[in-house]
């Protein structure tokens, strides 16, 4: 058993690793800047950059030397010069580049001074009849379009934190320009930053709430469990009872009726349950509050709806489980020995069917945690589902990522428990 446990435990590692990787890749590609969302639209680029610096968003994604910076926001010459028009005599060529007659000394239109003692990379596509001095580096002369990347070492003083260009020749043309932050090490990436923080159970900061994600999760877990636990067990109890009835009267009218009913229940969209429940039971009849989470009776309606919704598929599942059991030899033997139907059902079938039932319950435990997204967001139960839906609406990446990640890890763990349960009940499993 110990060896099995160990082996099974080792199996978890690649899965968890996969989940980490997938969630990271998925969420760090999302559009919209967390900095902008947190600081509002009156924030300056510098404030945004500082925010990114603290939260590690200005690093390469997985691996690499280059991170983004907001210091040079306007780099597209296809339509206008934007702030580059501050360069005296600079003109926009209709073919999409900036043209500057020389000789001239100009300064790049940075949104703010470069960070002191940081290293940047300036990538340009240009033409020039003479070399151009940029900061402390040199762009060689280029008769045709050429791409060059220069290292810019920002110093301490304000003067050293600007980028000056000294054009010696008669004409300097700039088609593309990009400024990057150069990292001290290619491992200084968002991914390693993420893993390092995860190891400390730091799930990041929600940009819409401006609070650590872990605090949001903690405050959301209680309402979620209060809602999801009764649904889980209510559903289990009711559907097992109905499944037993089906098994008892298999292929006779109660079974048929329940089957038809459960297919019908399954076919009603979750939304319809919720909308109708809120409108009829809460609003029209006034039996339940419409929305909110002030006391326990605010939970009644969501629990009722959640239970009803899951009932259809659960009855069918447990019915199959019971019937599978009914056709086994020992049941036939029991019947042959003349045992009563009820006795067979409760003494033989039910205990044996408990294994798949319990497995099913264990496997649905992780869903307790994400709760019912729709129920929570609709009825205003401030749990993790409510949190997640809001987070998705406001592109709150850190929150969604944390919820997904923890949900996945719980699922992996639940799987492990289910497997162990099987192995414990049926020793043959351990050998396979």
């Amino acid at each position, binding site marked *: 058993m110990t060896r099995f446990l160990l082996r099974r435990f080792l199996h978890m590692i690649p899965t968890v690793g996969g989940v980490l990787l997938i969630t990271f890749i998925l*969420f760090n590609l999302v559009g919209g800047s967390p900095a902008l969302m947190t600081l509002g639209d009156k924030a300056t680029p510098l404030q945004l950059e500082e925010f990114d610096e603290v939260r590690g968003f200005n690093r390469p994604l997985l691996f690499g030397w280059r991170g983004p910076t907001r210091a040079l926001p306007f780099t597209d010459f296809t339509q206008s010069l934007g702030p580059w028009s501050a360069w005296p005599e600079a003109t926009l060529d209709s073919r999409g580049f900036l043209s500057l007659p020389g000789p001239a000394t100009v300064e790049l239109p940075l949104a703010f001074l470069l960070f002191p003692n940081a290293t940047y990379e300036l990538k340009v596509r240009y033409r020039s009849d003479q070399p151009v001095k940029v900061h402390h580096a040199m762009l060689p002369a280029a008769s045709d379009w050429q791409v060059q990347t220069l290292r810019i070492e920002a110093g301490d003083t304000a003067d050293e934190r600007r980028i000056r260009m000294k054009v010696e020749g008669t004409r300097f043309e700039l088609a593309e320009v990009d400024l990057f932050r150069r990292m001290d090490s290619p491992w200084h990436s968002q991914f390693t930053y993420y893993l390092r923080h995860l190891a400390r159970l730091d799930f990041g900061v929600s940009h819409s709430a401006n609070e650590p994600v872990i605090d949001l999760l903690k405050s959301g877990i209680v309402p979620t469990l209060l809602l999801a636990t009764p649904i889980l067990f209510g559903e289990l109890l009711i559907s097992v009872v109905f499944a037993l009835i089906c098994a008892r009267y298999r292929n006779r009218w109660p079974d048929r009726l329940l089957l038809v009913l459960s297919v019908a229940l399954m*076919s009603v969209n979750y939304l319809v349950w919720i909308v109708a429940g809120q409108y009829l039971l809460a609003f029209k009849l006034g039996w339940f509050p419409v929305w909110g989470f002030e006391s326990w009776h605010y939970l009644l309606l969501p629990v009722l709806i959640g239970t009803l919704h899951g009932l259809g598929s659960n009855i069918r599942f447990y019915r199959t489980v019971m019937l599978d059991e009914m056709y086994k030899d020992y049941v036939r033997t029991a019947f042959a020995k003349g045992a009563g139907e009820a006795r067979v059902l409760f003494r033989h079938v039910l205990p044996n069917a408990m294994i798949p039932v319990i497995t099913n319950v264990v496997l649905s435990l992780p869903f307790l945690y994400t709760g019912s997204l729709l129920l929570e967001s609709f009825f205003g139960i401030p749990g993790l589902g409510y949190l997640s839906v809001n987070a998705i609406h406001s592109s709150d990446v850190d929150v969604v990522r944390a*919820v997904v990640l923890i949900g996945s890890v719980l699922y992996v763990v639940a799987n492990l428990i289910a497997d162990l349960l099987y192995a414990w009940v049926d020793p043959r499993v351990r050998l396979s």
Partner: protein
Amino acid sequence: MSANETLPARKGVWSILWRGRLSRVCLLVVGFYTVVALAGEFHCAWHKIQDTLPTYQRQQLDQRFQPPGPGHWLGTDALGRDVGLRLVQGTRIAFRVGIITSLIAIPIGVLLGCLAGYFRGRVDDVIVWLYTTFASIPGLLFILAIAMVVGKGLLGIYLGIGLTTWVGVCRLIRAEVMKHRDRPYVQSARVLGLGHFRILFRHILPNVSHVIIVAFTLRFPASIGTEVFMSFLGIGVQGEPSWGIMINNARLRLWEGVWWEMTFVTLAVFFIVLAFNLLGDALRDALDPRLQATEEG
């Protein structure tokens, strides 16, 4: 056992379904919806070619909240748009989602499932790792997250649902292929010196194709449900009358007794999902009673 112990040919499937009374009704219902969806598609395409505003988008502010009656059989909505016409478009979108997500999920699932089941070893390990990883991520959140990344709109829905639901298909196909790979007909093909891919896709795949049909009927209603849900939350379809959007709109005036939009949309969703669920059951019974309801949403 020989190669011809294979399962009912496709023609057989249809005749089995047609013979059952209930499944015949279901087939007719699905057929009806398909026609409606195609009509919606033509309607939409026609207006696109003509470069005009489709009738289902036409707002008539003096015709707001008209109850069902002549002119508007199913009534009008908050902007005086015809509920019936919008329902047709909702059907179109639901079918698009059902079909396109299947076209994404099923090929991925089948390909990976076949490879894993046939080659076993390293290939199997990698694919099992991939689908275990995907299966571990909470389904709905995963879909919503992908949609959030891709951006709102149909593309987000297609990719969100398509890229997460191949797992079930993959698992079923893998199990079936594993059963077949040691069967005599496969072994004799191998003795004849046929290439692996030829054996896999020309000989084994046709014998496990019933899994694909069952998987399709199971995931079709599930993806419709997910689409309705996502559009309701405002993450799904944009600017087009999806069923989810219609339900959300219909709620606004329910308190005043504007019942028609809600009722008709609800019924439309219910009947198509019911028909598919019943068909799925019938198919499963006909094709392979051992396949269990392992796929739910």
